[in-house]
């Protein structure tokens, strides 16, 4: 029987199940099928908190949300249109996020008394009316999968595990996804166990066919391709893009990359990824702690490598003293902070933007560093290159801020042309730089105010540097009051002198009176909210900062051009305070600190108020 086909412009699906149910993989596959089809995409995984919980419990729920559309989109979507719930825990944990009317596909096999009680369901939600108002599709995913795989000689456990492929097949059918890449993927994944590959493929097809045949799904959906810029795309997470950006920085600078890192959620994957690219001369050292990690990176920079260190808040705090040394030594250093919810251990798997103050002000003495932030998963690639450019050109530590949302979220990435990437080559000092034939390690380049990078091994430039105050030009230890004042101001001027592009303002109609100023991962939700407001006839402008220190030269003018400036942040107003202090503009701070990204909807509602009253 053929089914009715309905066109949709956008869909948000959330796959949810137990940690063991392979929801991340299922989401990944659906995402890549969807990519093949040319939709724009944004995804967001949601892992269980640090510690693994017993199977079937609420803390054990893992989910993956994918938003795809026929236009370009900016966020993984506020609320799912479809929830795939592999067990009662997944249903209970995700139901609150579901708008009435949404579709729910549940794996009925798991709704046993025992499983229900595990999550505190006294009655069965499938029958007690809990789900009234939703369109529920009850599917015996496990048993149907097992039945479908009866003839394969694989264990029962293995057959059951394939249920996620059954679900994927069903959803792929429902949204008319091309499945070739998934079949290929499964072949590859289970290359060593052909029967398992075959079984999973069979499960996938069984799911697809189930959709085709069952009465339960009367309509089938299609989402037309989005008109995105031409080119080759891949889907990429923030952590992967960041790691690739570091590799690219090594290639484009011609310098070896040294990563000193100590594992920490959600930054560890950068270490994992970079440790796999040794062929690029990338050295990764898992240090004994964060202090050693940044110390080793600084030592490598001293030797002429691109020193990089990655961590999250607690670890970055520990690096503070050594970053201050790097400020005094004036050597390149890239410090990556994948922010998570604090203070202290906080909620390691949850996102937050509350380390901006730490990056800007978290050192003793006057120790200014450059600070940049990425706005989207794929932007992490460009931001990494920009951080490396600043570090290498200006011989300074650069703090690069991302967060858990960017780190694990993904989006399609238009692959850059390698030759078009910035040229990051540097010149090491090779000969004395003063007329009297002496080498002056703190004699500066008049443009960049950078001092020469004279690496050990260079004959005739032997010199000593350290954390004590240094005399201008000679770099010798100096306690001279005037020299200290000069050096303190010079270190500040060095950072202010960094050339950064003007901030662009997205103000289509040009007559907006309210400006929304953001930084980092709020780019998506703010952008989406502004679009919605405009679609409702409200004029609103959006400026988003990549450079947080120094700030773009035009920022002051931009801010003063608007009657009202709103700064939404996933902290208590850290950027707002900076711009208020700097430009004396009465920037309004809007904050939610829930360990989650903003939803476009809440920003839209908040901004609508502001716009109306502006």
């Amino acid at each position, binding site marked *: 029987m053929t089914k009715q086909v309905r066109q949709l412009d956008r869909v948000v699906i959330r796959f949810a199940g137990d940690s063991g149910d392979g929801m991340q993989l299922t989401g990944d596959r659906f995402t*890549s099928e969807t*990519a*093949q089809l*040319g939709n724009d995409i944004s995804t967001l995984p949601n892992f269980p908190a640090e510690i693994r919980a017993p199977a079937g419990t609420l803390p054990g729920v893992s989910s993956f949300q994918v938003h795809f559309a026929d236009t370009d989109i900016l966020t993984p979507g506020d609320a799912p249109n479809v929830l795939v719930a592999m067990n009662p825990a997944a249903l209970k944990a995700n139901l609150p996020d579901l708008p009435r009317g949404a579709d729910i596909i549940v794996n009925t096999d798991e709704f046993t008394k025992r499983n229900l009680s595990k999550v505190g369901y006294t009655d069965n939600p499938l029958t007690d009316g809990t789900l009234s108002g939703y369109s529920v599709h009850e599917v015996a995913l496990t048993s149907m999968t097992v039945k479908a795989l009866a003839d394969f000689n694989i264990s029962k456990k293995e057959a059951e595990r394939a249920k996620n492929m059954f679900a994927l097949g069903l959803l792929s059918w429902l949204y008319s996804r091309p499945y070739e*890449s998934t079949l290929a993927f499964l072949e590859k994944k289970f290359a060593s166990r052909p029967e398992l590959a075959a079984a999973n493929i069979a499960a996938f097809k069984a799911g697809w066919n189930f959709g085709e045949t069952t009465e339960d799904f009367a309509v089938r959906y299609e989402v037309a*391709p989005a008109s995105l*810029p031409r080119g*080759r*795309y*891949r*889907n990429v997470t923030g952590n992967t893009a960041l790691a*690739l950006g570091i*590799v*690219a920085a090594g*290639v484009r600078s011609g310098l070896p990359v*040294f990563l*000193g890192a100590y594992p920490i959620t959600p930054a560890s994957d950068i270490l994992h990824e970079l440790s796999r*690219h*040794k*062929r*690029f*001369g990338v*050295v990764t*050292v898992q*240090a*004994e*702690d964060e*202090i*050693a990690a940044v*110390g*080793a990176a*600084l*030592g*490598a*920079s*001293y*030797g*002429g490598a691109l*020193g990089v260190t990655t961590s999250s808040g607690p670890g970055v705090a520990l690096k503070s003293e*050594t970053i201050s*040394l790097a400020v005094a030594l004036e050597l390149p250093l890239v410090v990556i902070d994948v922010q998570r919810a604090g203070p202290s251990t906080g909620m390691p798997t949850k996102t937050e933007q509350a380390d901006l103050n730490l990056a800007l002000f978290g050192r003793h003495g006057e120790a200014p560093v450059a600070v940049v932030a990425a706005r989207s998963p794929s932007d992490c690639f460009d931001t990494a290159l920009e951080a490396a450019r600043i570090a290498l050109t200006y011989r300074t530590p650069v703090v690069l801020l991302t967060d858990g949302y960017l780190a694990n979220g993904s989006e399609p990435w238009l*692959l*850059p042309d*390698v*030759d078009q990437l910035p040229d990051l080559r540097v010149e090491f000092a090779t*000969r004395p730089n003063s007329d009297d*034939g002496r080498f002056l390690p703190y004699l500066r380049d008049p443009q960049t105010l950078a001092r020469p990078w004279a690496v*050990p*091994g*260079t*004959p*005739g*430039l*032997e*010199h*000593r*540097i*350290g954390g*004590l105050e240094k005399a201008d030009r000679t770099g*010798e230890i100096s306690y001279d009051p005037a020299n200290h004042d000069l050096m303190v101001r010079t270190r500040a001027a060095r950072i202010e002198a960094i050339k950064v592009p003007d901030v662009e303002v997205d103000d289509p109609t040009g007559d907006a009176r309210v400006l929304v100023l953001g930084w980092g991962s709020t780019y998506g939700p703010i952008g989406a909210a502004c679009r919605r407001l405009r679609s409702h006839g409200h004029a609103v402008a959006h400026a988003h900062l990549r450079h947080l220190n120094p700030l773009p030269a035009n920022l002051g003018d931009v801010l003063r051009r608007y009657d009202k400036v709103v700064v939404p942040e996933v902290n208590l107003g850290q950027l707002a305070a900076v711009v208020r202090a700097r430009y004396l503009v009465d920037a309004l701070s809007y904050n939610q600190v829930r360990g989650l990204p903003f939803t476009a909807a809440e920003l839209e509602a908040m901004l609508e108020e502001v716009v109306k009253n502006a």
Partner: protein
Amino acid sequence: MPDAVPLQLTAKDFKSDQEVRWCPGCGDYAILAAIQSFMPELGIERERIVFISGIGCASRFPYYMNTYGMHSIHGRAPAIATGLSVTRPDLSVWVVTGDGDALSIGGNHLIHALRRNVNLTILLFNNRIYGLTKGQYSPTSELGKITKSTPMGSADTPFNPLSLALGAEATFVARTIDSDRQHLQSVLRAAAEHRGSAFVEIYQNCNIFNDDAFEPLKNPATRDDYLIRLEHGRPITFGADGKWCVVHPPGGFGLQVRPTAEVDPDDIVVHDAGVAEPAYAFALSRLAGPDLRHTPIGVFRKVERPSYDDLVREQIATAKKEHSATPEEQLASLLASGDTWTID
């Protein structure tokens, strides 16, 4: 002069133009002189030698060496040096540190550098006191030490730096003393030859805050009976014409000092720094009493083990071998790895 350093270097070539600023009489002067006059032996160009230190009186050392040098922050020199050593196999990297710098705030970096066996020569100037901060007790100060911060005496048992290093899997462990230039240089020689982490404790007198801490090892009246000079392959005897010797009591554990006359020569322990089993060097490290009686100096342990940085570079080399394309080409294919799709 920028280029062409004559490889016939002398001690003078290693003196920097900086005025040396330790207290008159400080043991650091003797160590500095000994090292400067030893350096030419290395046969390494000055520019390929790097001294990295932490903070402390001892840590001012790099300023006085006409090589590359970094006076870093308190306790972190081994970590910083690790990053340099791993990325720059062409350099000879030295760490200079103090008992507080290396064993108090820097203890963790030290023991990890040792277990990794990073190519570093670590010189610990042990004066058993915090000199730079004007006289607080250190992790090597004797129990009950009365200092500014311990007016009623310190309550912590000190570290034995060599025992700690051996417990941390060190492959080269030695001890020497500021007052004996010849011995100091012989130990530096062995340390410099060692591939991996060479850990050298140098007893150093702080004549301002802990004067004569090692007096019994220097005083002609006592030194012969207190100091044991270890020589690889030779039976361990000491004292006026070797009247004392070290034996390894059967059944018992650890080592003992006995009058040579009363001991069957075959029972005298023959020093072998190459014993794979660290238990021997460990036993040696426990020989000295709190009064410094029976303090062995020399190379306690020197065994071969692949160094961390060599292994890391091997991995890089192996990974590179498999690929012939230019970095740009490789990067392009790396970026395009995984599922990709084209929109046109």
